[in-house]
């Protein structure tokens, strides 16, 4: 048989635009603010953006891992808030920072596992399951705090997790780098990552190929919970306080970061570099808009447009990249 080229591979330039078009546009947005927005480029502001990006990107990577196994996790922000409140409660009660950290991680893991159980065993669609988990987590957060924030002079052993620096670089940045490398390694270099991807792409085919698809789904949702727990620790340590709904503002941002990330690098697939870059772009956008004097609610409008636009772009313009859950 003769050599047959794969049909329909796009020409070179189009392929490059498809992969990097929105990434370049994002870089354009950041450049615009660097030039146009007063104080955007000040070291203090840039550091602030990078820190905000760390919280956001870590939370968003959890959403991306759940989406990799084709599940929507709408509970990440409320899990993070509950985990933060739990850590804060431990600190207020005089527990050691280690206990507070462990408690936050345990909350994230447990609620992620609950989502996984609901989806794979109880057969509740993830959209519904995680919505329920979100409501429960939110309720418990308010119960624990009685509606007020935990604030106080928290031990440096705890606040240092976020405020400290290692080798002259903020621990927040280190956290993002470590989490990012872990996710990238998991997804790209391990058999588990390949099995998660196959499960998300074609569950029945993966099952017939002997992949433990339910375990992969549970793993994706547990990891989303764990990353929400890590985000919670960093948020609480950075603010030296914990309030119910403290991660609420990150919810839409995280979803937007993942979906915008899916339009770049690996169009149509949730991916680590796309998610991290998009988190940076979105946080720059939010910050720049404020500096340019745009009203606060403009951010929400922009986020909504980014969410819809990203999915439309994935599904339409890049024909091979229909978004499915």
């Amino acid at each position, binding site marked *: *048989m003769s050599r047959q080229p*794969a049909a329909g*591979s796009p020409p070179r330039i189009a392929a490059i635009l498809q992969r990097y078009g929105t990434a370049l546009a994002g870089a354009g947005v950041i450049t615009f603010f660097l030039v146009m927005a007063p104080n955007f480029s000040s070291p203090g502001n840039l550091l602030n953006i990078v820190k905000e990006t760390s919280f956001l990107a870590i939370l968003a990577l959890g959403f991306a891992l759940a989406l990799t196994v084709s599940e929507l996790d709408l509970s990440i922000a409320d899990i993070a808030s509950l985990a933060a409140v739990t850590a804060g409660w431990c600190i207020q009660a005089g527990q050691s920072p280690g206990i507070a950290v462990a408690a936050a991680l345990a909350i994230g893991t447990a609620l992620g596992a609950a989502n996984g159980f609901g989806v794979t065993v109880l057969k509740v669609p993830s959209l519904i399951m995680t919505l329920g988990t979100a409501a429960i987590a939110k309720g418990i957060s308010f119960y624990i705090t009685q509606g007020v924030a935990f604030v106080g002079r928290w031990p440096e052993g705890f606040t240092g997790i976020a405020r400290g620096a290692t080798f002259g670089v903020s621990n927040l940045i280190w956290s993002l780098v470590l989490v990012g490398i872990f996710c990238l390694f998991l997804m790209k270099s391990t058999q588990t990552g*390949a099995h998660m*991807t196959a499960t998300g792409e074609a569950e029945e085919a993966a099952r017939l190929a002997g992949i433990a698809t339910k375990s992969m789904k549970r793993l994706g949702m547990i990891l989303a919970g764990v990353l929400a727990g890590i985000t919670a620790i960093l948020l609480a340590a950075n603010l030296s306080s914990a309030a119910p709904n403290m991660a609420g503002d990150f919810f839409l941002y995280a979803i937007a970061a993942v979906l915008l990330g899916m339009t770049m690098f690996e169009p*149509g697939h949730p991916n680590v570099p796309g998610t991290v870059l998009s988190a940076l772009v979105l946080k720059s956008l939010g910050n720049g808009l404020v500096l340019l004097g745009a009203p606060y609610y403009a951010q929400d409008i922009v986020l909504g447009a980014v969410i819809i636009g990203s999915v439309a772009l994935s599904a339409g313009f890049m024909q*091979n990249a229909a978004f499915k859950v």
Partner: protein
Amino acid sequence: MTEVSPLFSLRDVSKRYGAVEALTGVDLDVYSGDVIAICGDNGAGKSTLIKVLSGAEIASGGEIMLAGRRMHFRSPQDALAQGVATIYQDLALAPRLSITANIFMGAELTRPLLGRFLRVLDKARMAKQAEAYLKRLAVSIDDMSTPVERLSGGQRQAVAISRALRWNANVIIMDEPTAALGVRETAMVLDLIRRLRETRHTVVLISHNMADVVAVATRVAILKSGRKVFDTPIDGMSAGRLAGLIMSGGQ
């Protein structure tokens, strides 16, 4: 041929779905290197037969012998582990994943990274082997990272068969492999089946297309209302005669 023992045999196999008797007392011997076509009208029990053979369904009665040993397949994975692979009508591929990812799905190659504690995917070796599997089927595609959705129907069949080869399957069951294909693609898939035969694989083929059956099969078994009513070598049989046999139920 008859003194050689069969590669696998069905003995008095039956399958009931509630009150429906989908298969009744089916005996079938398949020899290594056979391409056996299973024919019959709609509802005759063809799909049920291969589901039982592939572990997707468990027979209600009778036994399946493979290389002289009695098999108790409880799942497609059990059958796969014994070298019996099924290529489903929808091919069970992940359209947006690469050729390599599809061929190695669930059985990825890894290499050690840090001693024996951490193993990572060996992408280069998988791509190379994927190409080799396709070459064995006389199919060459330039780029193993091409998503399967960009391939033609025949090329997709080749990917699905390569996955079966990756599992070291020596019995390959195909349900209507040419059903959705055009003339050229059908010719390609028939070539793939001939290739499998040349490489001493055994193929069980379900097809409604008589021309395809007489073109590649070595034998045909005809089912009617869950019973095997006819079992004969093809030996130059015409498509018309085969159609007549199916309609008359082997008379």
